[in-house]
């Protein structure tokens, strides 16, 4: 069954077109990674699929329904890159995760015992149950990221959409995150995620899509690490913008299907 169907999509912000002609198909049970350098349009692609960026041309279908008429948003769990800007008032980890239940419960009903259990289950899945009463701002970046994944998981979605979940995340969080994602995919869930690099998620990814310059430059099995990336002591850290830029060359396919 088709979960996400994108054909000849063009999208952008204000006057600037970021995606020119993108087609992508994700079927139930797929785990698809969208790769690309910064500014390639990979985040714009998923934000357009979710309706956060308006499309200019082309079509988007979610679970077989045109996106404009799609109403069953509880089937989608979205994990943004970082916590929203609304941190003017403290909020506990449990309160943030509970937001994930609204899509299913609706605006007019109060949370019940089942909702509380769902919050605890989701936090257990990412290994953060002991932090349920702590303010989210006291958590590390990786723990905040896991909180956002728990929020998405709490709503029991069929499709998880994640925007660079591994950016700036500590090793322990990456592992906890990979385990939660593996379990979700193992239960038949569909995953669409934007990644800067495959990292520890490599074994989970069924298909990689490389976006370059607003178009799909490569689609197929995830590229194997090569060169210095393959060395066992190589750390997958790209802390500086200059080094991130190097990613453009790495992901641009030069010959055949080899992306390196």
């Amino acid at each position, binding site marked *: 069954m088709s979960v996400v169907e994108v054909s000849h999509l063009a999208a952008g912000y204000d006057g600037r077109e970021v995606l020119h002609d993108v087609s992508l198909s994700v079927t139930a049970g797929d785990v698809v990674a969208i790769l690309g350098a910064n500014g390639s349009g990979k985040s714009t692609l998923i934000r357009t699929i979710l*309706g*956060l960026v308006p499309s200019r041309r082309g079509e988007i279908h979610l679970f077989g329904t045109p996106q404009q008429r799609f109403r069953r948003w509880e089937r989608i769990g979205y994990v943004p890159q970082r916590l*929203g800007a609304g941190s003017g008032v403290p*909020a*506990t980890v449990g309160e943030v995760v509970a*937001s994930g239940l*609204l899509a299913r419960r609706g605006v007019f009903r109060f949370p019940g015992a089942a909702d509380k259990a769902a919050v605890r289950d989701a936090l257990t899945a990412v290994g953060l149950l002991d932090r349920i009463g702590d303010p989210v701002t006291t958590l590390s970046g990786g723990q905040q990221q896991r909180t956002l994944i728990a929020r998405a998981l709490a709503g029991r979605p069929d499709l998880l959409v994640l925007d660079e979940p591994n950016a700036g995340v500590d090793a322990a969080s990456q592992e906890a995150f990979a385990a939660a994602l593996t379990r979700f995919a193992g239960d038949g869930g569909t995953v669409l995620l934007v990644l800067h690099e495959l990292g520890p998620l490599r074994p989970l990814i069924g298909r990689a899509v490389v976006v370059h310059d607003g178009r799909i430059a490569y689609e197929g099995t995830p590229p194997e690490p090569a060169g210095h990336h393959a060395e066992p002591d190589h750390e997958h850290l790209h802390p500086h913008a200059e080094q991130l830029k190097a990613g453009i060359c790495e992901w641009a396919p030069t010959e055949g299907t080899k992306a390196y």
Partner: protein
Amino acid sequence: MDLLTQPFMQRALIAAMIIGLAAPALGIYLVQRRLSLIGDGIGHVALTGVGLGLLTGNDPVYTAVVVSALGAVGVELIRERGRTSGDLALAMLFYGGIAGGVLLVGLSDGSGNSSLMQYLFGSPLTTSESDLVVIGGLGAAVLTVMLFFRPALFALCNDEEYAKVSGLPVRTLNILLAVTTAVTVTIAMRTVGLLLVSALMVVPVAAAQQLTRGFVSTMTAALAIGVSAAGAGVLVSAEANTAPGATTVLLALAAFAAAAIGASIRHRLRRPAPQPVASEPPDVVLHG
């Protein structure tokens, strides 16, 4: 406390306490969104409504509700666009509001200046019975909406994009919040005045969050601080013969200062235990 037997004093106290609950119940969402000053701007716009009411001989509360609601929805539409020019558009709307208000109040016959002061800085002691009915009804409505839709409004103000992807009626909720801001501003203008309305929305929340860890506990504490400051403000100002609106706001600020000092003392007392803080169980469990 002979004063409490006076009906005008009882009405003032009840009205102030209703507003002391309603204002922070709404204000917490504005603070969460980092829009702490929006109430102030809507207060400016409401003044045009007051002037319109005085000029046309209608109850200024009703005209102020309508005009400030229109202003608040306008602000929301500008914010939604997210344009950089939004900041300037807001400034012009706000100053247009206060200038229009001053002009219209001046044009209306009768006691121009004294009624202007009454709306700018509040005069709870002149609350009539019919005023109290309006304040009570609208205040209860604001409080109910803010408490009932708390999960949805929390999700919206915490992460608007996530709320959108959750399929929440984001635009409707935003407009609900805007209209509620306008209603709260209008009923609060009788007690603290249009220039200090925003303080009663924001200061109790700021005071509460010095001591709390979560949203629900912050909201509960903010309502308690708001209602105490508003009630005490009316009583203290009557005893000490000071301006009620200003007294209320200064009491709320005193609560903030006390909470901030308390928080910093608590922080210092906890300091000695250095790194293993992460493995300790939480000291307080605020809610299950």
